[in-house]
């Protein structure tokens, strides 16, 4: 029985977790501070109370957290583990890349690893270089993983539900600057959505801008500003990055004849390169060379005044897209 609730992004994640724990008895939720304290961002609040020891705190041991999730998933549990910051996954990447991603393939499907890794990433004001990275491109280069990055409360809810129902390892990369955003109408309790798919967040005919994560809202702001200049931007959000909806991007870019990809991650080696390479490889005729907008190839400084000079914001995005359209 689907119902509508006013929830912000963090609350939507929390609602999804409650639903999943209730409907899938094989789920477990654990990680650092996620049990009794309810998570450093409050996102797992209430689970311990309602579901007892199916929600618990762990030592600061990312290899043990991720590795035990692999083992529990092999045995039929459906663990939902949290890595507090995506940056911290780097102390234990082996368990994701060399372990979780191989389970199904090597065993020919006789063993599987239906686990969900919730994490969050990106810069927030004052965060240092070790707490600011956008690492989705690393995970997207690893066959055997699924990866998504919701940016709206509805997607925060839906994608997590889909992820946990998926029989393979899925990374759900959230964003702490979104947790406490505005409340929106969120449909909860509806059917599990299929994995994949893009979202046309705004229709436009002059240029296609593909974006994901925290950049989506900035791209929409930029599109608004550009509309005032008479430039109509089609904003295509791709919250699912693996599987990635290449068709939607090709179709939109084919229609508008121009392509920009915007992500918060560093440009070089970012997933924007993959998107551009797919469009180029498909031979979609473009009126101008495609552009990528992201953080320049540099570490992230802590001082907001320095970080702001690096992170794409609506102004910079609008400027680059305007230049793309106006030539």
């Amino acid at each position, binding site marked *: 029985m689907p119902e509508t609730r006013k929830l912000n992004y963090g609350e939507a994640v929390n609602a999804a977790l409650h639903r999943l724990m209730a409907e899938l008895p094989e789920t*477990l939720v654990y990680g650092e501070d996620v049990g009794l304290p309810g998570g450093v961002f409050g996102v797992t609040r209430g689970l311990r109370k309602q579901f007892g020891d199916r929600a618990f705190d762990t030592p600061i041991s990312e*290899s*043990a957290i991720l590795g035990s999730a692999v083992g529990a998933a092999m045995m039929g*549990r459906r663990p939902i583990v949290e890595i507090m910051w995506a940056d911290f996954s780097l102390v234990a990447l082996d368990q994701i890349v060399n372990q979780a991603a*191989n389970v199904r*393939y*090597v065993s020919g499907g006789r*063993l*599987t690893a239906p686990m969900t890794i919730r994490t969050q990433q990106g810069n927030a004001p004052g965060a240092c270089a070790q707490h600011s990275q956008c690492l989705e491109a690393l995970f997207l280069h690893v066959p055997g993983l699924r990866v998504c990055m919701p940016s709206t409360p509805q997607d925060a809810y839906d994608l997590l539900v889909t992820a946990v129902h998926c029989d393979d390892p899925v990374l759900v990369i959230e964003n702490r600057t979104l947790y406490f955003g505005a409340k929106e109408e969120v449909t909860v309790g509806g059917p599990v959505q299929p994995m994949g798919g893009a979202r046309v967040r705004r229709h436009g005919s002059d240029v296609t801008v593909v974006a994901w994560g925290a950049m989506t809202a900035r791209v929409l702001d930029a599109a608004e500003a550009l509309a005032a200049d008479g430039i109509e931007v089609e904003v295509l959000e791709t919250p699912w990055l693996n599987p990635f909806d290449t068709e939607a991007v090709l179709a939109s870019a084919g229609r508008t004849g121009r392509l920009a990809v915007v992500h918060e991650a560093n440009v070089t080696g970012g997933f924007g390169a993959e998107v551009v390479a797919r469009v180029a490889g498909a031979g979609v005729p473009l009126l101008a060379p495609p552009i990528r907008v992201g953080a320049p190839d540099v570490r992230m400084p802590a001082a907001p005044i320095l970080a702001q000079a690096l992170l794409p914001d609506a102004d910079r995005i609008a400027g680059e897209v305007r230049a793309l359209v106006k030539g």
Partner: protein
Amino acid sequence: MSERRLADLLAMWRVRAFEEKVRELRLAGPIVGSVHLCIGQEAIPVGACDVLEPEDALFATYRGHGWALARGVPAERMFAELLGRETGVNGGRGGSAYFTAAEYGFHGENSIVGAGAPIACGAALAGRYDGSNRAAVTVFGDGAMNQGAVHEAMNFAAAFSLPVVFVCENNRYSELTPIADMVRTSRLADRAAAYGMPGYRIDGNDVEAVRFHVRDALEVAKENGGPTLLECMTERIVGHYIGDAENYRKPGEMDRIRAREPIARLRAGLLADGVPADEVDAVEARARAEMETAAAAALAAPFADPATAREHLYA
């Protein structure tokens, strides 16, 4: 009593005969790539697997052939796996160092040092919720004791009193480097105290000692007593991998090793107890014959089909 010991001998000979056949096939060509034999270490898998229950989970390393065999994985399907045949336990996808056969209670080898330990914790954790009486056994070498993941796993298991048995096969070398040079105190079992769990250094070449200690640890684990670390002292009679020149061996070392290796030792014990030599030696012949048959069958099987190489990545 001598019956059980003969059964142990047979199980150990199966492992050794399997490994020797693998070496032959590796040197002759049909098996390719890096292969890590467990010759000399057979008493550990044989003693341990004897007391495992079907519901228990077992995680080994790249040096895992003996563990898989002792756990009941058919030799033919293992040969086939190493030979890249369709009939291999993973159809050739795992190979010598990374195959898995959960249907036999063998939850896989692992080629990343120490990585199986946290995974075993998860298998044990799952048992808390699924109503099974599962314990998990994770096997690793002396060198793996210095890997971060093993430390995290030991603390995780101890803190949550998970039913895990940490089996450290201390064969005195990490690849080509003596473990004694890489630690300050060489009794690795003593590290268990750091986590508040029991740790025992045992004779890993004595199948009976291994059986006793693993059974005891499993009982403790299943009675909610938490994990145990067993440091099983043993030695490879072979190189780290097939092709290892073993330049690191000290004078006399190999003689000493051979004098106390588990099969020769059990054989001597049986003879001393009056079991007729032909009865004892028939065991070896039987094991070798079984492995020849299994290898021949595997060699006759079709190769894995390249058209399937992309299958089973996702659900």
